[in-house]
């Protein structure tokens, strides 16, 4: 690049910056807020190299915490569980939400459709602690609705929430119960955005309902699906409350995830240094997920997520 060209570019940049000054000003408060609320506390990651409890520290101990973490079997199993539960959840969640959204879209009775929508969004308004207490009652091996039905058919009652075999599927089901309806919102919004002309054209070509879905609806949804999927990928490691309220000591080898582990060690046992190390590890893994998602998005959509 010659000096001249560079000068020209700089000049262009100056003009651009001037043109966008109002935007910078607008963003400034948000920027500051991010600095204060999100970035300043981030210097706390330094705690991961220290020993820090309510009564001692922080004392620098180098990589001790990370060493301990990689040797700790509870941490390793919680890491694997997080990936297993969260990824299954993500895939199941995406598929069910799309299917329900598509089927909802095919409902022709407007009032019925509206009613269904209202009802399936309802569970989302319940907090997790409430959902957990409802399902503990329904799934109870003594007088719980599900087990009463099972007994009618001559089965032995099953202790769903404390059984290693059953916990994972039951957990996944409960999460679907609560969140599927809500997750359809984004897809339904995107569906209404599809131009009616496309369908009309397809109908003139003689495409049936199934074909319309396959060739028009799904491709139009693809971008939304992708964005939502990648965004959720960034949250994979954050799995917390749903697991926390449904787990118990009997199923910990299936149900302990990283965030619940951090909560127990970091907040209950107040081993702040070690738990920060675990948290940092968690963030790094999330980071890899986001990069992977962004890469995938570039491949498919031709542009990065943002």
């Amino acid at each position, binding site marked *: 690049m010659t000096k001249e060209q560079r000068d020209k570019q700089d000049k262009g940049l100056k003009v651009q*910056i001037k043109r966008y000054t109002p935007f910078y000003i607008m963003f400034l408060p948000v920027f500051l807020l991010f600095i204060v609320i999100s*970035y300043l506390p981030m210097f706390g990651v330094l705690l991961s190299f220290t020993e820090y409890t309510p009564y001692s520290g922080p004392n620098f101990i180098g990589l001790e915490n990370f060493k301990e973490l990689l040797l700790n079997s*509870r941490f390793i199993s919680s890491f694997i569980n997080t990936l297993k539960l969260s990824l299954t959840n993500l895939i199941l969640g995406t598929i069910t939400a799309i299917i329900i959204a598509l089927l909802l879209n095919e409902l022709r009775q407007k009032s019925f459709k509206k009613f269904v929508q209202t009802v399936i969004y309802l569970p989302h308004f319940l907090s997790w602690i409430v959902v957990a207490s409802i399902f503990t009652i329904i799934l109870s*091996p003594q007088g719980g609705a599900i087990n009463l039905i099972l007994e009618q058919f001559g089965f032995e009652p099953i202790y769903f929430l404390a059984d290693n075999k059953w916990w994972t599927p039951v957990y996944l089901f409960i999460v679907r119960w609560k969140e599927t309806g809500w997750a359809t919102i984004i897809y339904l919004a995107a569906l209404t955005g599809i131009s009616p002309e496309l369908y009309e054209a397809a109908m003139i070509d003689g495409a049936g309902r199934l074909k319309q879905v396959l060739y028009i609806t799904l491709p139009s949804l693809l971008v939304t699906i992708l964005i939502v999927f990648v965004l959720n990928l960034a949250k994979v490691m954050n799995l917390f409350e749903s697991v926390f309220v449904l787990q118990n*000591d009997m199923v*910990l080898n299936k149900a302990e995830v990283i965030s619940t582990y951090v909560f*127990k060690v970091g*907040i*209950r046992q*107040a081993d702040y240094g070690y738990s920060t190390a675990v948290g940092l590890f968690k963030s790094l893994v999330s980071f890899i997920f986001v990069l992977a998602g962004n890469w995938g998005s570039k491949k498919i959509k031709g542009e990065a997520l943002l």
Partner: protein
Amino acid sequence: MKKRTKGLMLFLVVMSIFGLVACGPKGESTKDTPPNTQQKETNEEKENNSSDGVEKPSKIHIMVDGSFMLPEAGQDDIVKKYKELTGIDLEITQPAHNQYYERVNLVFATGDAPDALALDIANMYKYGSNGALYDLKPLYDQSEVLRSLDANAIEAMLLDGKLYGMPKGDGNGSVTYIRKDWLDQLGLEVPTTYDEFLNMLRGFKTLGNEIIPYTSPGIIYDEYPTYIYNRFFFHDAIPEFIPVNGEWVDGMLEPEMIPALERLRDAFTEGLIDKEIITNKTSTCRDKMTSGMAGVFNYWAGQWGKTLDDNLKATDPTGEVVAMPAIKETSYIERVGFGLSVTNASKNPEGVFKYLLEFMYDKSEGQMLFTHGVEGIHYEMKNGELFKMPSKANATQAAGQVFLLTELNLNNFDDHFKIDERIVDSRTKLKQSVQVGIPVPPSAVLDKYGADVQILRKEMLVDIVYGRVSIEDGLERYKEQSKDKVAKILEELNK
């Protein structure tokens, strides 16, 4: 564009330094100052102060859990009255009850510790042994007022001769509550032996398909004393670290554990014990008891003796819950109770001791204030007897207690309040046969591995009780898995 980015990064770093400067020293100063210097300071200040040499604090900041009177019930009235009586501003921090200790950890870690706070014995030991709490022993030894408290309760709180808190009241323990009306219906007497107890459970089982003869929140409990429940099955076995002849051992591996496990397993297999024993919370069990589903439940003596019965009667007027004495094979477990500790962050620990702790136990207006509240707002006197007034939070209920409990009173203070008979009864039954659960002394090793060992214990207990594994195999597995951790803990305990 690069330049701009750099500028922003620089800004970020500057901001962060500002942030650390703003928060850092504040936290450090309280934490790093050794307690001695603070004591010295107060000693110097002493000279230009009141007759007995203790400076009166202008403000005391305390942190309490949900067992202190809630704001909606008239906490402000207590603060106002306290100011009136002592001239001191009382600042009360009361975090959510369930997150109390998480919050306690946080305030100590960030240097925000109050002057005094309520702590259970495990946390009191933990913070005391780590130098965060003020040793009250010298002050206690000189205090006329506090030496009138039950010496045993003080004794039980000592850790290596140091006293890190004054007991809030008797530690209390858990008794076995039973459905008296069902017992009568079956024509049975209150059981006195394990066989009679089993017989009663079998009888309860015949009363209906949905009836759970015996319910409990877990086989062992998460908090000290972990073995407070299910004593009628454990008998003399203690599933926790215990001192035997002066040496700490893992009670789980003692010989008496094997028959205890047999009893638990057999009773469970027979359908006498709640199938949901693992996922039950204490509130679930209470619900089962008070909704008429369960026949037997171990729970705190005292207030609950009344509450359980009242709540059952609300759903079933003919029902009756009573406490029973321990069967002859075992005794109830009493815990070393809560205490009010003074922190080393306090600028004037002597002042807090004198104007808060001694005041609270003065057998007069101070104790009255911290037991029943303010006359005319929380209680009224009629013919020399104390009556509760309607609660400020809910006029259909009587005002509750403030912080101290009449029935757990440690200095025989006569507050002219007639306690409900059921409360007295459950306390009497507890005291008939009781032993104190010995807290496991704190250590960094215990902090680190204790929770893991506890989980292994629970896994083993459940697998054995549910019949998934034989007693021998289960114990063997536990021994194998917990070996290293238990060894480290025991080594520390026996040092």
